[in-house]
């Protein structure tokens, strides 16, 4: 369409999930818009002109079912278009600490008042923010069409091209966060300042009753894979006695280093990401050692 003419943009504003799903089935090319912070950022055209939006937009902000949080004994279900500030307002005693700290560090207060967890998971520019924390606590994502529902783990949400692997007409509707207790949790955000996207992030959780590791998960964000987890390494740490022997740590780091070679570019930033990822894991294991001693 010629630049000189304002593009016709039709905005749908459904109020129910059922209505949204039916609408999306009929309009598969429509843009799903919730907080829209990243979309709006990329759609700026300057000169006081309207945002560059596609012809059809489905605004999800009024859809009740996507704007709720419900809490059960084992899970917290978070609507995909709930803004980050609202999620954080539940409090750090309810949200898993690793998720609370991660969400608190995303962008700025005003961005968190608009940005949604669903958007943060789906959009490439935001990948490094919440995915590691969600992955390590085994978060599940509900994907629905007008006629189906399925649940996937965070790590399985992306296809080989690292884009959300959604079927036609499918929408991310809920994020199910397990309310498990962990003995130790850490999240680190590296770079990005208070800007939009993190350059690198790390999340790790561990459970170690009686001086040996019962479960340990760690995940690195900001690499080529949206969710970089090495369950092979996690398995090798299972049942390891604490403190983790330095030989085991060195072996794990070597293996991680080999795997990271495919995850970064051969640039200064890539070298930094690779080296820092190793340091983050080492630091995580060292802190577990110290915490396990404190628990004696």
């Amino acid at each position, binding site marked *: 369409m010629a630049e*000189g003419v304002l593009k016709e943009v039709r905005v749908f504003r459904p109020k129910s999930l059922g209505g949204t799903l039916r609408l999306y089935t009929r309009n598969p090319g429509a843009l799903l818009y919730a907080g829209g912070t990243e979309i709006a950022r990329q759609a700026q055209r300057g000169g006081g002109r309207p945002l560059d939006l596609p012809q059809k937009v489905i605004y999800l902000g009024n859809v009740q079912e996507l704007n709720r949080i419900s809490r059960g004994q084992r899970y917290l279900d978070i609507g995909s278009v709930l803004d980050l500030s609202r999620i954080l307002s539940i409090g750090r005693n309810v949200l898993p600490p690793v998720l609370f700290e991660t969400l608190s560090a995303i962008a700025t207060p005003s961005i968190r008042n608009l940005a949604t967890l669903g958007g943060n998971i789906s959009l490439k520019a935001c990948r490094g923010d919440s995915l590691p924390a969600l992955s390590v606590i085994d978060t599940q994502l509900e994907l629905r069409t007008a006629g189906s529902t399925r649940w996937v783990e965070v790590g399985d949400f992306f296809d080989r091209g690292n884009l959300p692997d959604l079927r036609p007409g499918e929408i991310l509707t809920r994020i199910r966060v397990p309310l498990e207790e962990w003995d130790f949790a850490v999240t680190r955000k590296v770079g990005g300042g208070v*800007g939009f996207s993190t350059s690198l992030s790390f999340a790790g959780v561990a459970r170690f009753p009686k001086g040996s590791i019962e479960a340990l998960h760690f995940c690195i964000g900001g690499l080529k894979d949206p969710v970089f987890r090495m369950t092979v390494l996690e398995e090798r740490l299972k049942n390891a006695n604490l403190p983790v022997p330095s030989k085991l740590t060195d072996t794990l780091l070597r293996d991680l280093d080999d795997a990271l070679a495919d995850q970064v570019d051969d640039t200064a*930033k890539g070298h*930094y990401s690779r080296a820092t990822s190793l340091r983050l894991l080492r630091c995580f294991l060292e802190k577990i050692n110290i915490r396990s001693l404190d628990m004696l």
Partner: protein
Amino acid sequence: MQQFIQDITPKRSLRATVFRSPFRKGTVTAIGKPALPRGYFCVGHRDIPGASVLSYAGYSLPILAKSEVRYLGEPLLLFCGPNPQVLAGLCAAVELSYEEEPPVEYKDLTGPYREAQIINLAHGDVDLAFSLAEQIVEGEYRTARQEHYYPDTQGAVADWDGKSLTIHAATQDPFGLQLAIARCLNLPPRKVGVVAVPIGNSTEGKLLSSFLVAAQAGLLAYTAKKPVVLVYDREEDLHCSPKGPQFHIRHQTALDQDGCTMAVRVQIFMDGGCYPPKNSEALHRAVHSAWGAYQIPNLEVTGRAVATDFPPIGPFRASGLAQAVFAAELHSSRLEEVAQLDSFSWKKENLVEPGRKEAPASALAVLEEVTGLSDFIRKYSAYSAVKKRRKTIDQGAYPLRGIGLSLARQGEDGQWADLHNIEAARNASAMKLVLEKGRRLRIYTSLVDSAMGIHAMLIHRAAELLEIDPRKVTVQAVDTREVPDTGPTILSRVVAVGLPLLEQCCRTIQRKRKDGTPPIEARRSFSTERLHPAAAGQAAGRKRKAGEDAGEPSWAATVVEVELDPVTLRSTCRGVWMVIETGNVWNRSTIMGVLEGEILRCLGSSRLPGYAAAATFAMPACSSNDLIPSAMELPDIQIHLMESQGADMKGFEHLPYLGVPAAYAAAVCQATGLYVDQLPITAEVIQQCLET
């Protein structure tokens, strides 16, 4: 509420947009303008009635490219009209044919490149000294291009009424702008009126760049015969406006068997960009400050501005000075290691002039004061001891700390930005004061209000001298038709020129007050020759001598303490201490606020990624957070002003730019045990140093 350029939208005004080159380097072979709807106008290179190249302070910049394109986003056409959407359509409809050339990607500036300017400076016998040296210490230091990041993007509002042009502009030099627009439109200057709008913290980015956008707006208004508003978007401004140049500086120091300096050889390469200045003040200052604050018996400095395929450069606060001092101070930290002295002791020893026992008193005083305030010597020793015991930096669980000290002076060549070229083009600087009834004073000056608190400074000084209530002192709106030309608004120039003019006017009013009744008017001016003999001399071809003083400098010693996270290698600043010897100071709170803000900005530019020229418009220029630190990064900043009673106030706004980066770099070097030789120092840079 303060009104910035984006807030000025006269009735019936047309919006404007710039059609820019989508490629970096090449030649436009044909440019097909679209058919214009009624009420829309287009201006190309051929439509410029007068001078098509802006010349200012030694810089030259085409208003619109004729056919040769030298940088991404170089302006090619201008459009204006009522609807921005239609303007965008017109830009999209331009048919552009061009032959693109691959720009040369510069890895470093050391050549071979076309040289735009060479400056040589020497005294003593450097070759002999090097041949006798016991040891030679070498270092290479790099600084990046600098983005001004003024909060208000470039913009101008122009209106041609058939007889004269009025331009509202966010500019630091209204009369300079008036001359530039008059030349561009082939009008007598009296037919161009410039109304200066308040500017945000510009770091001297509202000089040359403001002329460009105002010339573009003026051309459109002249063509359309209607008011035209042209304001650049942030992306456009980041991509396309001139930047502070990058530098590459090589130091070689010849030492005797005691580790004392025998000779210094310095090679300075400055990136002149694609339109390199023929007579660069920044290079001049870099050459004259290449050895820092120290006495060197044998010295040879060569400065080269080289033409590159990078975007254009323009004035930047302390440009040339800051980079030279950074290199000199960082290099001196290596010499300190060879001499096995701490930073404070080495500086004291090397400030001494041959034949004298004591270093300049002011320099010693600021050094001693800052080391005491910051507990520098104790911390330096402690951190050095930790560094010696440490094996590697990236395997520890404890933070890494370091502390750095730097010494700098502002004055001589650094007294004000681009003075020589500006002053050579102007005849005089003037100011007028009028004491009205009711003890009200009005100040008439072309000095623009800015983040530096210029107007507040003038108001308080006048109120103090005339013993009137500062609330009754106002500065007349800066309109070139109503105020005299006091010259460009640069803080140290205000101190050196503006304040003396104000003081003279006040004295005249005091005299006239005894016999006269209000209104009482006083007008004073300084000629260029009286103002700065060197400038007049330069205009006549006289060469400056090496190390020639033009007046007492202001000294500053800076200490920066940092802590690095051994996992992420990211630094936080634990504290900054700065002691400045400034002469007599009034309006202290304004000055302290300015210094604190500038220190924070300099810390930001020392450690944040900063600006990198993008290859295409599709890539974002850079994030604002890469340039400006946020409220979450507030170190403890302590500033102590050492006032010399009886001495005039001296310029100081360059001192944070001279002191902070070098002290920060020295602190990081101590914390990491690495030789980090570039700015900015990001975690990625530290990682690179670790791997090499």
